[in-house]
């Protein structure tokens, strides 16, 4: 399998999609850092207090990671189908599980490279905004993101290996990534709703707080548990949580990412073994 992996890595370095994704990761985080620095300067000029640290702006764009993984995996693996080169591997007797695993491993390397580029881009913020206040938290979040990317790649690798039409695979993968983000965003938004709402009433004595009323958007019981669980376990939920610096159960997130990666890869190999290649 190492031969196939090395062949894949060699193709990875030449891949235009990979290069563009790395560049976008780097430039996007540089942009975020420069924009934040400009905001800090404005606050300082106006003499306002500001609590901006590198910790709470560093992860601003990580939710986009899912879309990036979707685009990359579907186009990179889709080329193997569209150019027919997967046949070259099968004809010379390479096992299907080897082909699948090597492609998944290459996708994970690519995702790690995106994160490294994003991280390096973020380092621009160190001389401008300062260093991390919580280094352990930063390392933990990076670990969560790394496994989150592996689980994303597990999902999109499965899709791309089984869908032989590159364009269809790319569209479905991106739509799935966006749908996951929207679903997780909805769940986290719902979870952040207060249990009671309190309004302000104008009385003769002046403004007064009204009686707290139950919030109709508040969820509790099993539904709340389920939302919390899905937010912590789905890669989209994890990336939004990291972005908003509210990672609730990091160990659960790490374990669930590993489980998703394992399950999707096992299911993908099982299906790919029976797949008719044209």
């Amino acid at each position, binding site marked *: 399998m*190492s*031969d*196939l992996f*090395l*062949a894949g890595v*060699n*193709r990875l370095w*030449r891949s*235009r999609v990979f290069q563009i994704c790395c560049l976008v990761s780097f430039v996007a985080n540089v942009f975020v850092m420069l924009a934040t620095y400009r905001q800090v300067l404005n606050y300082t000029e106006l003499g306002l207090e500001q609590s901006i640290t590198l910790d709470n702006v560093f992860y601003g764009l990580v939710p986009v990671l899912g879309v990036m993984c979707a685009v990359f995996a579907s186009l990179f693996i889709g*080329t193997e189908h569209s*150019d*027919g*080169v*997967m*046949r*070259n*591997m*099968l*004809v*010379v*007797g*390479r*096992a299907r599980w080897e082909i699948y695993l090597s492609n998944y491993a290459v996708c994970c390397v690519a995702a790690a490279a995106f994160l490294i580029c994003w991280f390096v881009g973020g380092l621009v913020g160190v001389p401008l905004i300062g260093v991390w206040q919580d280094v352990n938290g930063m390392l933990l979040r990076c670990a969560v993101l790394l496994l989150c990317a592996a689980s994303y790649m597990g999902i999109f690798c499965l899709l791309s290996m089984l869908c032989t039409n590159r364009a269809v695979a790319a569209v479905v993968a991106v739509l799935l990534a966006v749908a996951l983000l929207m679903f997780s965003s909805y769940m986290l938004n719902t979870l952040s709703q207060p249990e009671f709402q309190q309004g302000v009433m104008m009385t003769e004595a002046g403004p007064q707080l009204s009686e707290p009323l139950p919030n109709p958007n508040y969820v509790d019981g099993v539904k709340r548990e389920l939302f919390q669980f899905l937010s912590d376990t789905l890669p989209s939920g994890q990336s939004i949580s990291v972005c908003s610096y509210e990672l609730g159960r990091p160990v659960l997130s790490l374990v669930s990412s590993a489980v998703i990666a394992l399950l999707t890869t096992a299911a993908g190999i099982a299906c790919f073994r*029976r797949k*008719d*290649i*044209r």
Partner: protein
Amino acid sequence: MDYVLETKDLVKRYGHAKALDGLTMRVPKGAIYGFVGRNGAGKTTLIRLVCGLQLPTSGSYSIYGRGFTSRDISRSRRRMGAVVETPSIYLDMSARENLRQQYRVLGLPSYEGVDELLELVGLADTGKKKARNFSLGMKQRLGIAIALCGGPDFLILDEPVNGLDPEGIIEVRELILRLNRERQITVLISSHILDELAKLATHYGFIDGGRMVREMSAEELEAACRKCMRLEVTDTRALARALDAMGAEYRILSEDTADVYERLNVSKLAAALQKEGCELISVRERDESLESFYLSVVGGGEHHV
């Protein structure tokens, strides 16, 4: 005789459609095996199965004696190369990069042989030109070069001259002949261009409706298609004596029919037969082309080759 590929009662279904219907064939070692059939006959399906791209619904096949379900079938596949339908090449790589990539896939320790392969297929001077800018013939030759990486001794080519211009057809044909003669590579070529196959093949397999209709050697086919006179007489033993006396080449087909493979003076033959006490009933000239032979084998029908 040693066989590189043997299939037995291979069946492949796609939903309710049967692409292969109990196909049995044998490809002898060292042969150029022409796999002939109309579009949709099941040629490409068989190639996909043999290449491990798809699994048969039932039946079996073996490559170099190893069954397709055996654990070490990959060792037999390492001795194979194939171009299935369109050439399998990375369009954003040059010819050399494509070959190097296949060397990596094979896990070969060095790129030794890449230049020789490029030279062999006539792509040595393509430099950094990307494969997407190659002509169809160049892509086809690059596909064959990739199939040759690792030095296979069994090459499968699916419609290798489809869509090529006359020059491209000649180049591919000469390449296949050279590989067979100089490197002793067994070649399985599927095609429906019979005239082209006739210039290459040493063995033929005629497929129709997913079944092998007939397998024969080039000599047998040549004999079947040879120009001859078909004679109908009252006694072929008497005819044989007369033809032997005339030194003619012939083949007795039945009690009253024989083929004679040269032009004879019919009057002299009739006189010779009369002496033997035999009557000449009819004489017909036969000149069966490969196409008409194929149609007679597969039964004609709406589609024609």
